[in-house]
């Protein structure tokens, strides 16, 4: 029974890994630096109006009611910390996707904080 659950968990982990850009994640980036960058975003007070405006760019590709496991996953209503982590991972080049890496080059801590707060508060 435990063995079955463990195998199921492993199978899901593989599926989730495969559909995200973490499948193309870099092994050259020092993740300690990523953690420091994530902590810095956490220090910023989020401006929700700004987040709503910035989210206009995201909605062009991330459908609000789209599936979470699509090549471009739905991000509305997701955990704020997870959203910050994903955005910082793209900005630092840990996650590999050319569109998202380029999108994040122009997003500072204030923008990431605003987007994460707005998306986390948005219902699917």
């Amino acid at each position, binding site marked *: 029974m435990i063995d079955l659950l463990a195998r199921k968990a492993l199978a899901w982990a593989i599926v989730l890994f495969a559909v995200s850009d973490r499948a193309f994640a870099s092994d050259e980036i020092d993740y300690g630096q990523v953690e420091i960058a994530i902590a810095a975003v956490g220090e910023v007070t989020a401006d929700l109006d700004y987040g709503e405006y910035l989210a206009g760019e995201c909605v062009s590709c991330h*459908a609000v009611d789209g599936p979470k496991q699509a090549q471009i996953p739905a991000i509305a209503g997701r955990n704020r910390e997870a959203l910050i982590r994903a955005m910082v991972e793209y900005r630092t080049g840990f996650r590999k996707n050319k569109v998202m890496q380029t999108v994040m080059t*122009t997003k500072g801590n204030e923008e990431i904080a605003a987007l994460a707060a707005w998306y986390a508060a948005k219902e699917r």
Partner: protein
Amino acid sequence: MTKLTRRQFTLLGATALASAALPVFSFAQNGGKPKVVVIGGGAGGGTVAHQLASDAGDALDITLIEQNEEYTTCFFSNLYLGNFRTFDSITHNWDALTAMGVKKVTGKATGIDTSAKTVQLDDGSTHAYDRLVVAPGIDLIYDSVPGYSEADSEIAPHAWQAGPQTKLLKEKLDALEDGDQIVMVPPPNPYRCPPGPYERVSMMAHVLKEKGFREARIVILDPKPKFSKQGLFSEGWEKEYPGMVEWIGPDIHGGIKNVDAKAGTVETDFDTFEGALLNIVPAQKAGEIATAAGLTDDSGFCPIDAESMRSTMDENIFVIGDACIAGDMPKSAFSANSQAKVAANAIRADLTDARKFPARYANTCWSLIATDNDVKVGAQYAPADGKITSTASFISQTGEDPAIRAANYDESVAWYEAITKDIFGSA
């Protein structure tokens, strides 16, 4: 001087904005909500209407003037040619927007009275606006290709405005036999969808290859010495369709001298090319209403303020999408959709108490070369030196991992679903 915190600065900004937005009260005195009229329901106009209806639908009266009852997207129409999409799947309507309170008027805008702030329609009706968004897309300059005319497009389709022309090109493509030749003449810069002609060639080649044709050929007679994603397409054609596709630039062919649609020939300085199918895409300019309203400059397109998408010709008018001069941004649905958000933010700031944020733009263009072989190019943009300027960019690499190319295709499919919802309010 006391140093301001960002929050204080924002508050001051909001106060300044409130003063600047005083004309709001004059709208109220005229009775009713401020009026926004949008001409054109495509990637730019649809998005503006959707944005305003979502965010400020209670505060604004939004009218969408559009001559069609449904809309076939130019983007992904090459995938219809290549049998990757059905025609229905790239055809949309504005029902979801009207359900959100947008008034859709089916008609053709024929004139704009900028002093009375009204739009005239072909049925004689007029529509008053406080702010007007002009998003008419492109018009084709048929006689930019010697010998070619609008009538000829019924024989040698351009299919650069999606709809009946797209279906006509598909019928002619599907009717080809092995040994036949397609001659494509792409447009000169600037034009809608820079990689589009070359993705189209890829999709036509895909259809010919799937049929098992070995002798069919596609010749591209390009007026340009180079083109978008050239290295990627050249590599892709050689790998996927060896010997089938030939691109000939102007230094070889010396210029298009004459197109005879009925005879199926394209004459150049170099040679006369015969095609069982001619796909002729002429030069382009802003949609007619933009010219009629005096919003264009000598280039045939509309200059705008890079901070807001506001026309430099009239402060109450915004021009977005293929009709505008967007600096480094290509003419694409993604660009139009991005510009629409900046315009919507500026319009809300003009007419309501909403905050104006700095203009930021984005674009990504995916191009399908063959099954699971999709390439992309994209960039971020911001205003600089009075124009929309690229601040970061990327392009797919030749020789890259096939898994990335396959993921690109899945990504493009997900993008299409998302952006069409963002334009039309639903898929």
